[in-house]
């Protein structure tokens, strides 16, 4: 029979890249001094999986390569070998090589084995104690395949004595099936020996008592059964039976069957490979997206509903009259809702955790840190924050650039850090979070920071600003000069960043996504670049609430608590500002209804509902009419067809099809005048 393996290869590539990632992050963990056996186990298992799969799918060079890696990992797993830095580095490089090899296969090309072979011999050298070259161990594998030929004259058949041990049945093996298999190999005559069979009352049906003496001769095809084939049948029960195998010899020259067989094998493999190459052309590496099963399930539910609606409508259409108008309308409304929900659910699938973009950095920071001779710790926060896949893809390059920037220019070499009284190890921190309907990704470091003087000096030299005006510029203005085209503080460039791409490109890329990038820095203490991307679509956990009859959404993450206002805890500061005593602190109260001009009425605070939110480390109470449910909402930008609206970060479509606006807390506070309010400062 023929089974087309092609369809499983794509799956294998995808799994392999996951396995490679697991190996990579495991190795990096080890390189940071981790000794967790689980980590080593995971690395081993990943290598093992790749090996098994690649062998099965016919990628022999990959299998061979992983085999050597696996051997080394096995020794580490069993505590026979230390995870030395040198070994980790070679293993990391091996991961790269494997990735490239599998990548070639995926593209339908033969991988370039040269680098693999060099690395392989290095691995072998380590395994063999760093002395011998690869030759010894490699030939071993080949030797295993040649087995003993029957000596002397030609073989006419076999005498086989087979005595199962009593417990042979316990492993699920069945003598009857083995005998049947022997019968397939040739002409079998047999004699059963029941001498061990006890009397009926003493017999345990779970034990094996019978033994056989058999003669196996050539079958109808005239071929004498092969010893390997016979042994293979008993391979699994070697230790659970006594087996003797005697060749029946006659003086006749037998054809070299083994060679014959090998040739046949080669042919088979050859043709399979041919088919592979043919099919390859059609399987272009398709862009794929990984989606959590719960999202697929949710979509499945929606499709189910759609099908129900469809059948309801078609039933209605069978014999329609005007009296059913109402039902038709309901049905169509339902259909509209179904399709809308389906669309949204589809869009939600495009959301991916930002960890997909972050994942490459541990490796990159490790490698570049080494090259630069700097000790760098990578910290990642908020990797679960979700963003649209396409936005993320475009975020990749700017991110890489900024991280490299931090490593090259931000962080100092260890000696310099020690002189500055800092920990010799510096950090680069990647942090992602949602804020006001935007996604913010921060890249910060505790390096030397930006020098206002240096940048201004350059700006004056370039005529961007006059010496006199320069004094009036805020630090922020000055630092933002870095994003201007042709502005680089060249003296700080290291060989790594001399790549002709400046921060101006970073800014352009981000702005083309409708985002912005800012920098903040303190000289001697570090810098922080933040990329803010407004999302055309993003998922937000929202708290729905009502204000003057209108439903709004508040990001759930910013809500601390909600409470019923007690009049005696309300205080006034100045004429309009109201504050509320929340346990031991005073928090300002703001009235979104009047800020968002939905209502002019000045509702009494007593008994009102106060939602306490946290923003920029401060607590503020929002007066709302009613709290509704919490739900995940898809954020839609108002800027697609309109423009930015103050205090509103976007809109979403609720289950009933109505549009609901999402509150942007920063904007709301700005509008409320709270930023300058004395009460706010008291509370802060």
């Amino acid at each position, binding site marked *: 029979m023929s089974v087309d393996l092609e369809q499983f290869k794509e799956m294998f590539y995808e799994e392999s890249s996951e396995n490679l990632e697991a190996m990579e992050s495991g190795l990096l963990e080890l390189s940071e001094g981790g000794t967790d056996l689980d980590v080593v186990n995971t690395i081993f298992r990943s290598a093992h999986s790749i090996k098994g799969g690649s062998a099965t799918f016919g990628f022999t060079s990959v299998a061979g390569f992983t085999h050597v890696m696996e051997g080394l990992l096995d020794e580490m797993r069993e505590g026979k070998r230390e995870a030395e830095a040198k070994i980790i580095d070679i293993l990391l490089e091996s991961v790269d090589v494997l990735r490239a090899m599998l990548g070639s296969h995926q593209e339908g090309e033969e991988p370039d084995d040269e680098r693999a072979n060099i690395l392989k011999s290095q691995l072998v050298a380590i395994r063999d104690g760093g002395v011998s070259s690869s030759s010894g161990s490699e030939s071993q594998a080949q030797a295993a395949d040649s087995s003993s030929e029957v000596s002397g004259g030609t073989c006419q058949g076999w005498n086989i004595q087979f005595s199962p041990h009593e417990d042979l049945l316990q492993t699920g093996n069945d003598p009857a099936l083995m005998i049947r298999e022997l019968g397939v190999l040739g002409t079998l005559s047999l004699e059963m020996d029941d001498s061990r069979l006890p009397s009926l009352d003493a017999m345990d049906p779970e034990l094996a008592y019978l033994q056989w003496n058999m003669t196996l001769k050539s079958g109808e095809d005239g071929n004498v059964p092969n010893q390997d084939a016979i042994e293979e049948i008993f391979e699994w029960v070697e230790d659970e039976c006594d087996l003797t195998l005697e060749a029946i010899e006659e003086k006749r020259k037998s054809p070299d069957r083994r060679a014959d067989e090998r040739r046949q094998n080669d042919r088979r493999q050859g043709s399979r490979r041919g088919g592979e190459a043919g099919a390859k052309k059609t399987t272009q590496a398709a862009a794929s997206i990984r989606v959590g099963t719960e999202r697929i399930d949710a979509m499945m539910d929606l499709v189910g509903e759609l099908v129900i609606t469809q059948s309801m409508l078609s039933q209605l259409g069978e014999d329609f009259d005007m009296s059913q108008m109402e039902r038709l309308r309901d049905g169509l409304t339902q259909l509209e809702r179904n*399709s*809308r929900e389906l*669309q*949204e659910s589809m869009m939600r699938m495009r959301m991916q955790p930002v960890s997909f973009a972050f994942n490459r950095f541990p490796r990159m920071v490790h490698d570049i840190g080494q090259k630069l001779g700097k000790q760098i710790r990578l910290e990642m926060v908020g990797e679960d924050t979700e963003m649209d896949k396409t936005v993320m893809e475009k975020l990749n390059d700017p991110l890489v650039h900024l991280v490299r920037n931090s490593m090259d220019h931000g962080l100092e070499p260890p000696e310099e850090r020690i002189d500055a009284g800092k920990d010799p190890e510096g950090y680069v921190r990647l942090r992602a979070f949602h804020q006001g309907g935007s996604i913010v990704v921060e890249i910060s470091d505790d390096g030397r920071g930006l020098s206002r003087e240096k940048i201004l000096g350059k700006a004056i030299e370039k005529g961007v600003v006059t010496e006199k005006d320069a004094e009036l510029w805020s630090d922020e203005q000055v630092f933002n000069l870095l994003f201007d085209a042709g502005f680089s503080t060249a003296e700080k460039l290291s060989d790594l960043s001399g790549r002709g791409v400046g921060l101006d490109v970073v800014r352009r890329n981000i702005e083309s996504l409708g985002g912005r990038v800012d920098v903040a820095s303190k000289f001697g203490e570090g810098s922080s670049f933040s990329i803010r991307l407004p999302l055309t679509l993003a998922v937000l956990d929202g708290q729905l609430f009502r204000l003057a009859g*209108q439903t709004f959404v508040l990001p759930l993450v910013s809500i601390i608590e909600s409470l019923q206002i007690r009049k005696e805890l309300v205080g006034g500061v100045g004429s309009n500002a109201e504050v509320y005593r929340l346990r031991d602190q005073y928090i300002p109260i703001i009235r979104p209804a009047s*800020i*968002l*001009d*939905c209502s002019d009425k000045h509702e009494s605070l007593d008994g009102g509902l106060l939602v306490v939110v946290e923003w920029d480390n401060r607590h503020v109470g929002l007066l709302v009419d009613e709290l509704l449910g919490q739900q995940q909402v898809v954020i*839609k*930008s*108002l800027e*697609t*067809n*309109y*423009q930015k*609206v*103050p*205090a*509103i970060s976007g*809109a979403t*479509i609720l289950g009933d*099809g*109505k*549009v*609901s*606006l999402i509150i942007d807390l920063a904007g709301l506070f700005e*509008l409320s005048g709270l930023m300058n309010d004395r009460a706010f400062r008291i509370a802060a």
Partner: protein
Amino acid sequence: MEAINTTQTTENQYLTFILDEEEFGVDILSVQELRGWENATPMPNTPDWIQGVINLRGVIVPIVCLRKRFGLEDREPCPTTVMIIVKVASGDKERVLGIVVDAVSEVYNINESDLQPAPSMDGAISIDFVKGLATIDEKMVILLDINKLVNEGVLAKTDNEKAESVSA
């Protein structure tokens, strides 16, 4: 569309609608669809002629009340009230907006050469948004430049207009 082009000038189709008893026309190519009037979700801190946003098959579409935008007397929606959904090039993308009018009227073929320049009009309909006047069966039809209306009259000038509408 059977009209015979005897001249070299181009002929365009216009959808006309009624607003405060005047007939206006927009290039039919910019009309995406017509929709019955529905309540929009109001947006805070926007000019009063922005009625709010609606959900158009999953897309958030702002709705402009043309009566208010042109400074005409406001009126309760009635069964003929219609939202004309237009698609307009704006910068490097297309924007979709809804325009609330009293009723839709006809589709006319109008020859560009028959357009008369708009005289300066008293009232709030800025001459900037008028492409020209056409006379059809003795009636005057005011053809709007919908691109200009959206890009200059709805989007960019929000801050100024807001100030105006507040002071008005």
